[in-house]
């Protein structure tokens, strides 16, 4: 593999459950060292896409590559380079946390025991506790630790923070993901699917928004923030009806006008200024707002 080989590449991926199309001509490229978000509503096809990536589902059409490897043909080689946290975490109920880690470590060439201990302490988990006695959130924590400790090149997370309380969620994002990428900035890739986008705001380098199995929008986060802007204008009278090109969403509330601009913020601002507003402000959208605006439009 050379430097330019993408960590994940999907081309024209299609998958259907019977007649229901879950993923349709989906394209995606994740470069190594990035934190890539896959956003979408429930049922958008995120989990199906991830399962195709992991060779848990065989795509009906299209190609999937993990570090240039075909997961269907080079199953083991591909899986050696990634670790995965499923949306519904499950462990063998007879095992303790310690046994679960030992069990999983036996499949790996590398297992960072220092990280394991640190994260266990941070999450206040007792390694001698049986996994069937863990709460849903604790099971997710154990799964996250188990995914980080092998120090693989790719971390695939499917709704990793669902079931976690807000404190643990924040701690997870700051600690686990931070710890995973820290020290290996160019080589550790994260591919995360979530609808709790605000939690990952500062981490996501690039994202794709999925809807009905298709990629609706793919952008780098910084570029997205530049492109999608929220413009607020307040008028002395109810705002005039304006034909604004490049406005994704226009909402009037009393004397206030709120416009979501898609790459045309400057021209919309000029247009509004011409109407002599009392106040005019522009701010970048958060990723969550971009997600909502994109899907609503």
């Amino acid at each position, binding site marked *: 593999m050379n430097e330019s080989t993408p960590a994940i590449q999907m081309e024209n991926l299609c998958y259907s459950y019977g007649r229901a199309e879950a993923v349709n001509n989906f394209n995606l490229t994740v470069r190594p060292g990035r934190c890539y978000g896959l956003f979408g509503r429930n049922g958008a096809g995120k989990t199906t896409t991830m399962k195709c990536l992991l060779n848990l589902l065989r795509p009906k059409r299209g190609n999937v590559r993990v570090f240039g490897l075909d997961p269907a043909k080079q199953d083991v080689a591909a899986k050696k380079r990634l670790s995965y946290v499923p949306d519904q975490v499950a462990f063998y109920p*007879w095992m303790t946390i310690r046994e679960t880690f030992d069990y999983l470590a036996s*499949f790996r060439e590398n297992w960072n025991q220092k990280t394991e201990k640190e994260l266990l302490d941070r999450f206040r988990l007792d390694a001698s506790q049986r996994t069937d006695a863990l709460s849903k959130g604790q099971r997710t924590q154990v799964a996250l630790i188990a995914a980080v400790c092998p120090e693989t090149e790719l971390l695939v997370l499917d709704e990793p923070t669902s079931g976690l309380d807000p404190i643990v969620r924040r701690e997870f994002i700051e600690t686990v993901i931070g710890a995973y990428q820290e020290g290996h900035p160019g080589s550790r890739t994260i591919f995360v699917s979530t609808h709790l986008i605000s939690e990952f705001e500062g981490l996501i380098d690039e994202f794709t928004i999925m809807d009905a199995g298709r990629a609706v929008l793919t952008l780098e986060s910084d570029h997205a923030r530049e492109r999608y802007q929220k413009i607020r204008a307040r008028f002395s009278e109810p705002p005039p009806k304006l034909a604004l090109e490049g406005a994704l969403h226009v909402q009037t509330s009393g004397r206030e006008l709120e416009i979501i601009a898609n790459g045309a913020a400057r021209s919309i601002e000029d247009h509004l200024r011409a109407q002599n507003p009392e106040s005019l402000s522009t701010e970048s959208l958060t990723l969550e707002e971009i997600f909502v605006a994109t899907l609503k439009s």
Partner: protein
Amino acid sequence: MTAQSIQLRKEARQIFWPWLVVTLVGLMCVIRLSNNQYSWGPLDFVLPLDLVLPVGCFLAIPLLAALPLGSEFQHGTLSMLLAQPVDRRALWLRKILITFGAVLPAAILYVFAWHLWQEVGRDFWMAAAWMVATTAGAAAWTLIARSTIGGLALSSGAFWIVFIVWLYVSDRLHENPNYSAALHWMTGILLSGYCAALVWLGRRMFLHFQVADGVLGREALTLLPATRSLPQISWDWLRSRPHGAILNLLRREFHLLRIVWLLSLFSLFIWIALVLFGLVRPNEMEPTPLPAGLAVVLSLVIALLAGALSLGEEKNWRTHSWQLTLPLSASAQWFIKFVFALCTGVFCAVVIPLAVLMTRGWIAGAPFSYLDHTPIWIWFAEALVATSVAFWCSCVVKGTVRAVLFTFPMLFALGLTYAFGNWLGYGVARHSEWLLNTVANKFDPFRVNHSLSIFANQMEDPPWFLPAIIAPLLALGLIQSLRLLRAQTDNRKLHVLRCMLPPLATLCLTSFALSFFFLFTHGLQSQENDVLRETHLAIQKLVAGRSDARQFERLKIDDLARANPLSDRTQHWLRDSTILVTIQGAEGRALSSRIQWPYERANAISGSPGQTVCPYSATIRTAKGSQCILNFWASGQNEHGLLTYACE
């Protein structure tokens, strides 16, 4: 539709399909038994009454009784049900109504079928008592086990212990005529007490049931309290280690099959009890006694669970897909699962009972005296088939209970398909005169017949025949199960039917090909018989009255036809042949008692009364290069003789 009827419909829907299958099988048994004159032909093969009736009474009815509550655990809906604003007593009543409403008609059918099958005797009453007791105890035991199969195992196991003790006591009391009448009353009272106590216990447990376990709501056999404590005792070896992935997978399999180990332990005690209480006797010529039959049913359940449990439980816990993301190939994981299941099935279902019976026989001085007349390899083959089919089923459907329940219709479908393939093969072969004629025209019929006969004779032996039937099916089933293990299970009925089609089609094709082959070979053989018999009759006419030994005759087909009319087929088979006949002297008059079958065949020949026959030896050389040697052995005193022939 009222709320009450909607809720009752939901309860009924939960057990409808298993109930339908159990009831239909019971109904077929009744129809079959009430119409003795009519043979069902192929259906006799798929509906062996001595297996279906005990399995129905002792396994299917208790399973049906465990399902209304067990399916709530299986689908993880019990907590949701109990959270509804309905009095638990009303929920309990609904469950009980559905249980008895489903079990009663099915049980009546099986009781009636049993009555038609055997005289109303002890076995009949034992079967009836079993159904009543296990139905009454199903709810309580299912709540303890928190699963359908666990409930079935505990309910059956508990009553089995009561059953054995009662059998032992009743055998002793029967010897004393004073107690004989009182015994019936006592049994009735005890059974009623047992049932009432369990129904009361079940109700009490349901009313106070607490949804406390973290994994509750999923079918989790391995979470049975008894199974938890079993391997926890000390076995450090069974704990996962940071190194040795394959060993860890084996340890995992051992844990997943805990319920099988527990049942095997129970089975061991049962077989020991059977031997100790004299319920299995040496050199038993009668049909298998009922208690031993029940132990055999338990072994069948063990074999099925060994196949279905590992993957079924993984799918219940949703650890299956997560396991597939580990850096170990799916085929390696599949191989470990399958081989472990097979070894467990064979060891627990066959080796344990055999070991007990042979040990008892060995103590008595004859190790095999306690085994019935079934060859031991049949026991192994049955366990392997049951485990393999259950494993395949666990790959097709989600969950252990579904897999075990699916195994029975699948086995039935396999039996029916085999019978259908056979029937089709015989039907087609019976109308394939043209093919026989084509073979006779295009090839040397003697040579073809010789080769086919030798092959067919070998294939008729069970050690050859069974692998020929099973091998293609097994190969396809294994490939299919590997593919299904990799894939995410689709639970739709269409998917299940689609999965069933390839193995059924393979079996149909194999059984069709084999039965067609056997009947075709048989047809060719009987044509050869006819040809040689006609040849013999013609030779007899030609050599009649001659007694000069060592006299050679070189004959052609026309000579034979002139002596005795020959059929077109014989003329065709022997076209351009040369027949050398040597009239035998005294040595030909002594009947040979030895033939080299299957290379050589023999037919007793009777001429017309008063006719004196002449022993001879003839060699037929056909134009296509094959050779048949005919030897006719006769005393010369009367019309009888023995014609032996060998063609190559």
